[in-house]
């Protein structure tokens, strides 16, 4: 069979298109002109402006706190849950794991609306706490699914071998099970952090009036008209994303 060049061209064109907004954003973050559509020469002024913007920094700090808290809590709940579900084999486990997956299956807006209603019913003060709960709910499924997948793929005899060699249940978990599922936990963490750090829809409903996350801030500013400052912020965030992805690749390569 003759090798067609079409697939390569197709992949290249579509991939290039997906990068258009990213490249444009980075270029225009160095635009001296205040009007985004006009190129006014190279300038770092928007970066300077950005670093003076206390508001955005507070939002960034909130997003980071929120992301780390939600991810760590869901890593613990999701990992333990996946291990427990596999070991016990209760019938009701299927039901609970189905329900626990719902937050990423249903449209985000439903989750936002539901939490708005329930948190006011429960009398929670809207703010960081409600944000963390809401984000935890959609981070758990990622960790849970990835860890479950890994556990299913794991040779059950490895754990039995450890017990046979004298390890008690706790030692088996820490010496054998945990190291085997660590890559899955890390990928789950990375993915759920990205989801948390990116979330607007759910956050808008549960954030209250005092706490802003970065995406909410960006969203409101974009609604009121694009500010060049956002381009600078976007460029930084893209750079951070790329660094994280690169580090992740290095880690995965090491563990292959």
């Amino acid at each position, binding site marked *: *069979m003759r090798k067609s060049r079409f*697939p*390569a061209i197709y*992949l290249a064109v*579509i*991939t290039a298109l*997906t990068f*258009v*907004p*990213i490249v444009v*954003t980075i270029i*225009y973050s160095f635009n001296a002109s205040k009007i*985004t*559509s006009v190129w006014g020469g190279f300038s770092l002024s928007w970066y300077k402006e950005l670093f003076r913007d206390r508001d955005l920094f507070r939002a960034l700090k909130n997003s980071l706190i929120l992301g780390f808290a939600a991810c760590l809590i869901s890593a613990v709940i*999701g990992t*333990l*849950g996946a291990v*427990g*579900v596999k*070991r*016990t084999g209760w019938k009701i486990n299927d039901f*609970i794991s189905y*329900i*626990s997956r719902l937050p990423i*299956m*249903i*449209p*985000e*807006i*439903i989750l936002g*609306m*539901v939490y*708005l*209603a*329930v948190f006011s019913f429960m009398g929670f003060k809207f703010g960081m706490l409600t944000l963390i709960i809401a984000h935890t*709910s959609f981070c*758990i499924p990622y960790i849970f*699914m990835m860890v479950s997948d890994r556990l299913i793929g794991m040779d059950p005899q490895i754990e039995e071998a450890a017990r046979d060699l*004298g390890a008690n*249940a706790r030692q088996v978990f820490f010496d054998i099970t945990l190291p085997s599922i660590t890559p899955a936990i890390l990928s789950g963490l990375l*993915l759920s952090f*990205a989801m948390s750090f*990116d979330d*607007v*829809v759910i956050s*808008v409903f549960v954030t209250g009036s005092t706490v802003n996350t970065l*995406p909410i801030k*960006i*969203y409101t500013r*974009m*609604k009121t008209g*694009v500010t060049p400052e*956002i*381009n600078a912020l*976007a460029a930084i965030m*893209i750079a951070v*994303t790329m660094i*994280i*992805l690169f580090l992740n*690749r290095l880690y995965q390569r090491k563990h292959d």
Partner: protein
Amino acid sequence: MMGSDGRNRNTAGGSLSAGSGSGRAKKNKRKRSSVWILMMPLYAFTIVFVLFPLLYMGFLSFMSRAEVWGFVNEFTLGNYKRILEPLYLNTFKDSLKLAFISTIVNIFIGYPYGYFMARLDEKWKRIMMLLLMIPFWTSGLIRLNGWIIVFRSNGILDKLLMGLHLTDAPLKLLYTYPMVVFGMIYALMPFMILAVYSSAEKMDWTLVEASRDLGAGAAETFFRVTLPLTMPGLLSGVILTFIPSMGLFFVADLLGGNKIVLIGNIIQQQLTKGRNLPFAAALSVVLMVLTSLLIALYRRIAGTRQLEGLI
């Protein structure tokens, strides 16, 4: 050489159970393990913060609205009756239409992409995966912001086209329906690609060769072998693009201005401006039922629980 050095494990010397002599006929039972405790945080969180809220939403949808905020404890079907009003019914129709269009387009763009990608050699697979991941992991808002710069009136695209004398006036693409469709497609395409890719990657390509070897043409092989084998990925790609596209209100908001209204936007408006909690709940219930039906349908067809490529 393996002589006893006093370090041998103590083998139950003292723990001869009292009843062992007479215990021949009795049923043995080891102490139940306590691993179930590990799941309790998941159980608790899921019940309190997922199951209960969803049930509460169902309950709310049958309540009457209160003056300012919240609800009055009076049973009513009014919220659901109101959804049948043309205004809301049309919104549902529009949302489904939009979700439908963007899903179809995503199939035609994303399927070949995932399929071609699976046929690359290992090195290029990794490179493409990384390239795919960069936009995927970049905030959706930021990517929309980039497109706005491109498409806005007198933006990059207009300048480019006018510079090439292909058009002589700005196209005014932003804040139109096609723009919203475009935004949805763009936002959700990675899900389709990843789903198809993971399914095509697992496929046994020797089957394709076997089919060609048995005399089937390229097209026949595709429809008889490749497509059925990658169907689980394609179906889960459909689910993963269709469902979110009904709820992503900010895409319609930012790219469609206030002209395009989707269910997501109405729910949001009912909560923020209308302050009608029970009605928003009823809308959510209907949306939830729609998505549940889709997922149930998916499971029926694909015969699996797991959504392919959902990572």
